[in-house]
């Protein structure tokens, strides 16, 4: 996809790095791919993510608890209420889908007969 031009453009800010880039890009890319594929990288990113999730967990749970308490006191639906409602709606959709399928099945012979006639 890449089509490189040989014309030197002295005022293009990327031009200054172009020759250096073309020479080193492949090597740099391979090096980075090797780096992210090491166990040390996996360990480091895994540990960082784990540390952040563990340290932010109690704060997040406290906010959630407080929010649920506030909404309940205000007689407002909570996140859990919405989830439960959404689940019920999906169940209704599934029942309607089953009914539609049964209707389609029972109407098929009628449709075929009408086509023949």
């Amino acid at each position: 996809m890449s089509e490189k031009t040989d014309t030197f453009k002295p005022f293009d800010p990327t031009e200054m790095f172009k020759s250096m880039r073309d020479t080193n890009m492949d090597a740099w890319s391979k090096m980075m791919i090797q780096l992210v594929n090491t166990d040390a990288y996996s360990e480091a990113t895994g540990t960082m993510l784990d540390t952040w999730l563990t340290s932010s967990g109690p704060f997040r749970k406290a906010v959630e608890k407080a929010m649920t308490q506030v909404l309940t006191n205000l007689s407002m639906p909570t996140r859990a209420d919405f989830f439960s409602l959404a689940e019920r709606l999906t169940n209704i959709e599934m029942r309607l889908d089953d009914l539609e399928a049964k209707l389609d099945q029972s109407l098929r012979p009628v449709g075929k007969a009408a086509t023949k006639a």
Partner: protein
Amino acid sequence: MTATETGNPTMPNVYEELLKIAGNSQTFQRLMLTDAKIAQTPKKLIWTLNKAKLFRYEPVAPEDKRRRIPLLMVFAIMNRPHVLDLRPGHSFTEYMLKFGYDLYLLDWGTPGPEDSALKFDDYALEYLPRVTRKIKSVTGSDKFSMLGWCLGALISTLYASLRPNDGLKNLILLTAPLDFSDKTSSGFSRWTSNPAFDPDKIIDAFGNVPGEMVDYGAKALKPVENFIGTYLNLWDNINNPKVVESWHAMNTWVRDVIPMPGGAYRQLINEFYKQNRLMEGKLALRGEPVDLAKLTASVLTVTADVDHITPPCQSAGAVERMGSKDKEIFRVHGGHIGIMAGSGAEKTTWPHIERWLAARDT
């Protein structure tokens, strides 16, 4: 010889260069921040369930040249399926319609927080059976073909193994992540097999895995190409309309990230990546054991030889275990997305899929 011919800047030349750079910068910015028109092939919505939608593409081939068996396309759950119909003139959907296929697209939609419990069990045993039932009802055909890509291929394989008598005749698997026995085969396998990587904590924190997080993970596998190379390539070719149009369409699709349901993510990491349950014969969905030997449809597996997301070994090993008598592995030179959306796809992958399906359209 003038200064311009030798490439030395003169004052008018400098001014022109600066103007050109300013214009290119504006184009660059526009391409980065705006959406190209993708997924333009006309289609009709024929079924919905929760966020999932099933579309039927409007046929373009004359009646007498249409194929008999409908084809359902199932894409991954953490990206939009528009890459199958990227842009007019370069679209797999358009290509297959020209050959007379009755084409259906399952769009899983964007999961909300209320969908965080969705698992592969639901996709394979609740959604897909309903979708195929609808297709059979619409077409009047008892048989159908299915094309799954990436996690869409995993879901299709699970469905095909669990419901072999539903009428699935032909199964095309594109870069299917099925066999995770080699923990060093890809960056994802390495990262997720590390004990410090705990998907449960991610799900507890987010509910659904944010699209940006999944996107970052995929891009970080090839950081130089994805974070720098792609933009340099655009800048180098900013005055080439063909390259710009193609880049813009692909970037529009790449930017459109969606969250991945927490339940499915947890299952993917724990049961597939870490424990390799499908290949170990220990996977059960809603209590039903998944046995690849029960998969009887004809199978075409397409692997990409430089796929950094799903390396070929994650697809090839599983094919041997499938019960089908008619199996083929087609190896394509390219990356995870490039084999279907790259500029060479029209000459390699698409014709092969079409010919393979045409030979089995009975």
